């Protein structure tokens, strides 16, 4: 019963929204808003085909490579900047400036500098989604409890051991918060990077459908993007539950007291 109730909560609202969509499309027929059934058919036709290999997989591959590099680079730079005080003081204003620049603006620049290829698209994803990880990591390193830091010093945990046993785990809740933000940014940048001067990819396909008035197909692409977003978020949740088990346990205990 409890299980059924949980499922009800999870799929309840999506079901209502689907129903609303269907009702709207049936009552007010609109060429640009096809009913869900038509979009579902288009979804199967378009994506369960060769297109999956030529458009979807390359997009996902670029997204994953870009996100991987962004997370590694962001946390490595964040740890370095967070640990070295003078570096932090020197870089902070510059970082704030660079972060404030909308990452999409890098696309025309990179088109000129890198050219039209995968490297350009991956670079866009990396440059845009690295910042939340980097800045959150710096914050996380800065917020290390002084008592823990003293303890590590007393027991002569230094250098790499200190980084691995104190700095990284202590900053990990913030690092994960940064990763979460960078996932959605990465997806946005993946699509946008394929809208400029591209000849394949999910973003390219959606724009092409729109320009050729293949409206149900266009909507099915948007649905696919949503599904990729959900999949990323599920993977993230699984990783987070494992990596931060101690953090959630600790928080639960301190809330109970």
């Amino acid at each position: 019963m409890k299980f059924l109730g949980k499922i009800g909560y999870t799929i309840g609202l999506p079901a209502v929204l689907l129903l609303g969509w269907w009702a709207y499309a049936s009552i007010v027929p609109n060429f640009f808003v096809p009913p869900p059934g038509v979009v579902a058919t288009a979804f199967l036709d378009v994506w369960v085909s060769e297109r999956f290999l030529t458009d979807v997989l390359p997009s996902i591959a670029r997204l994953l490579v870009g996100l991987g590099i962004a997370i590694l680079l962001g946390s490595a730079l964040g740890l370095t900047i967070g640990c070295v005080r003078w570096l932090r003081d020197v870089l902070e204003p510059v970082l704030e400036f660079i972060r404030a620049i909308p990452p999409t603006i890098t696309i025309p620049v990179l088109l000129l500098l890198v050219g039209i290829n995968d490297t350009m698209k991956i670079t866009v994803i990396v440059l845009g989604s690295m910042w939340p990880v980097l800045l959150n990591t710096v914050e996380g390193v800065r917020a290390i409890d002084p008592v823990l830091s003293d303890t590590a010093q007393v027991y002569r945990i230094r250098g790499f051991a200190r980084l691995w046993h104190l700095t990284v785990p202590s900053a990990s809740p913030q690092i994960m918060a940064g990763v979460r933000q960078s996932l959605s940014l990465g997806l946005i940048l993946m699509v946008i990077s394929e809208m400029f001067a591209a000849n394949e990819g999910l973003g390219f396909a959606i724009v092409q459908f729109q320009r050729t008035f293949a409206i149900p197909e266009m909507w099915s692409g948007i649905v696919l993007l949503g599904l990729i977003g959900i999949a990323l978020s599920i993977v993230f949740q699984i990783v987070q539950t494992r990596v931060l088990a101690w953090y959630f346990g600790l928080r639960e205990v301190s809330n109970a007291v």
Partner: protein
Amino acid sequence: MQFDVQANAVLLTPTLSVQGVKKVYETRNGSVEAVRNLTFDLQQGEFACLVGPSGSGKTTLLKCIAGLLKPTEGLVVLDGNRVDGPPEKMAVVFQEYGRSLFPWMTVEENVRLPLKSHGLKKTERDERVHRALEAVDLHNVGRSYPWQLSGGMQQRVAIARAIVSEPAVMLMDEPFAAVDAQTRADLEDLMRQVWRDIGMTILFVTHDIDESVYLGQRVIMLSSSPTVVQDDIAIDLPIERDQLTTRSHPQFTDLRGHVYEQIQIAKRGQAAPEPDGQV
């Protein structure tokens, strides 16, 4: 072995020597003198308690001894070597047990931490961790996380971590201030036991007069800011102590009265205006 601890103390040179330590913090609103001039020696195997009114710079002094802070003047000498960073043979137990144990490590991993810089074999490390946990009566919770344990048990984990590398000197900064009275009494007896078993030098900072007399062989009293040693007395209570009989012993009452009196004098000293405009 445990009974000749006191005899040894007379023969050997001091393990720990605090010589004219002064610590001034530079803040935006000028300098604050936390410790003026402290000098005392601890003999090997001695259990000394340091009491003083709050704000008398006890924690500052402890951090200077532990090598976590540099004294503005004076020096700390451990076994003939000047302390200018955390020494290998020293362990510290902090007051905030909840914040000094690594929450992402299990109890065992926390206790193993000081051995990382020792380069021991894995079996030897496991053996030492096991012994340390046994010594504090915590052999069943090695796989738990510290935050799953009660406050008293967490402080036991911190004590196990402090003794695992068999330090020569152990510093304790009001370690039992945050636990309830019953747990506190148990932990006091545990510390007496651990000290007698291992025979290390202990400097135990507390603001609790009863605790200092019950635990120590010696009580060093600090004056309030600016801090100097107000008095230094030997506690010649029998080595076997227990909460009931020791605390009702007439000698215990006398000693406690003496320490209390000195602390009162120290506090009154604080009320008097300072010659150099101390904050």
